[in-house]
């Protein structure tokens, strides 16, 4: 693996079920991504896009293959070390915003910083700046239930970026948004990726979004193809 890659996944295999319900989802999928690069992954529903992102995001262990973040093979280290990698090196944007309902927008965005051990004040200051960047200034003390779908997803983008991770994994980030809000979130991601030199892996059904990426990969029969 080249040291230039911020994330690389090599020969990833993953299956579900047993016997009659056995389903092989990933069959040797590979990806290598450099800093600032935006890669989109397309494929039909059930093709394994989310599974692949979860394996790359250190949420789900592969049956076979290696995932390296920076120079570290993440599935050979302890769970607490993996937690630190998820915290500092990776950011997640889910299809459904997955903000914590009991916390305000500001607290949600600040959460990764607080988990990293930052003081409440520092975390809130950083979160407030990011909320402003994504156009949500004035909404800091609102709860997710008091915000629109587009606002929640923009807050989710801010949350994923607060610790400036090297890779952001976005699973259908515009899947639940109308076209106007989709456009806003897409623009936001590409602008921030370019400005912060962060790598993005975006799983999407949207041809338009996939087309804006630097590289577009198709997950077909468990393998990623260009």
């Amino acid at each position, binding site marked *: 693996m080249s040291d230039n890659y911020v994330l690389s996944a090599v020969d990833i295999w993953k299956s579900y079920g047993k016997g009659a319900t056995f389903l092989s989802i990933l069959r040797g999928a590979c990806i290598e991504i450099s800093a600032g690069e935006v890669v989109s992954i397309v494929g039909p529903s059930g093709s394994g896009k*989310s*599974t692949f992102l*979860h394996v790359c*995001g250190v*949420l*789900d262990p592969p049956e076979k293959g290696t995932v390296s973040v920076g120079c570290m093979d993440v599935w050979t280290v302890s*769970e*607490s070390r993996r*937690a*630190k*990698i*998820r*915290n*500092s090196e990776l950011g*997640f944007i*889910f*299809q*459904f915003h*997955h903000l*914590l*309902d*009991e*916390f305000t927008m500001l607290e949600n965005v600040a*959460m*990764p910083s*607080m*988990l*990293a*051990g930052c003081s*409440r004040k520092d975390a809130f200051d950083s979160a407030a700046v990011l909320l402003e960047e994504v156009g949500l200034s004035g909404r800091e003390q609102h*709860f997710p*239930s008091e915000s629109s779908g587009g606002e929640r997803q923009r807050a989710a983008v801010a*949350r994923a970026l607060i610790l400036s991770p090297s890779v952001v994994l976005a*699973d*259908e980030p515009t*899947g639940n948004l109308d076209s106007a809000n989709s456009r806003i979130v897409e623009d936001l991601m590409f602008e921030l990726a370019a400005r912060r030199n962060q790598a993005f892996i975006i799983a999407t059904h949207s041809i338009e979004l996939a087309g804006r990426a630097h590289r577009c990969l198709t997950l077909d029969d468990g393998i990623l193809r260009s």
Partner: protein
Amino acid sequence: MKLSLIIRISLRQIFSRSNSGFVRTVSSLSIAGIAIGVAALVILNSFMDGFSGSILEQLSAIHPPMEIRIPGGYAFKPEDIRFAESLALMSESITSISPVLEKTVVAAGNSGDVAGVRVRGVDWDIEPSLVSGERLSELNVSGQGAVLGKALSERLGVSQGDIIRLASTDATQFSAMGRLLVDTIVSVSVSAVTDFGIDEYNSAIIITDLTTASLLFRNPIAATSLSVGLVQEADPVREAESITAELRESYIAGDSEYMVCDAFILTHRNLFAALGLEKTGMTIVLALISVVALLNLLSALNMIAIEHRRDTGVLRSMGASPRLIISTGLMQGGIIGLTGALTGSAFAVFVITVINEFFPIRLDSSVYWIDLLPGEVQPMLILSIGFATVAACLITSLFPAIHAIKISPSEAVRYE
């Protein structure tokens, strides 16, 4: 460990805003369940301890903490008293020793009715200082005279200043027909009528001076027992054992008569053991309330864990360690347990105070010895119950906490 973050996450999840406050209601009910369990245990133990403490207090107001006697009911000779006194007073915990003459006699007054009573002759100069409380000293008795309980004075139809007759029988005179029963009748004026606090004492005990009591014995004797006074902080059981051991050694060495020293509380151990057994039984029954509350807590914490399954996955994806997740689960149990314990304790103290102050529990003194059941607020008891409750809640919360870290973050965050 980010303790403040763990507390914040725990509090937000316990009092969750989502699902129309359902989680919040279930959490509040869990706290209420634990509070009721704690309150029940505190109230029960406070009144049971108040009951036994009150009986002990009433008994201690008449009886000294320790008594030296000669087994078999034999009387003390003056040299026995001197020896016991010199030996016992070597201990720094013992304040003084006073002879006592006790005998069962028949008492008659103005009503024509007679009563079998226990006459206890004491040295009025010393005895009040040996017993706890001010009951005997407040009577201000000196010289010759008798102190009666209220019930006995009513039965005999006498009041302060009246004369009562005490008749004692001894089988000490020999004749051609064998041993004869000889009656001794002593008249004594009533110095005071008092409430001894215990119904049995009010109806069947007369306290008088040593001179009057000695007249009831056909052959004058020095004492039937010796009252021993102790400093307040001394342990009567331990002191009694120590004195008994020394008295036994003296007896073996041939220096004295065989004497023993009894702690007053041990002479009534059957009573206090019975009260203790009753308290244990009731505590076990009421502890079941706490067990039910803990099961309720387990359900609530499981529900909170299931309700926040997705949040747990999201937190894991953001870098929350398994340690943080398990700590959050334990913290939730701890918060509910602590809140329940504090609420329950406060409620119990409130109930005990209100009952003591405004709705005192009256008892039939002929059945329960005392006529008022006091609740004793005991900080150590409350602390113990509270600590045990929080510990039990933490242990209970371990299961949902461990379950939470077993949730696959990948499964939890999948969009459904």
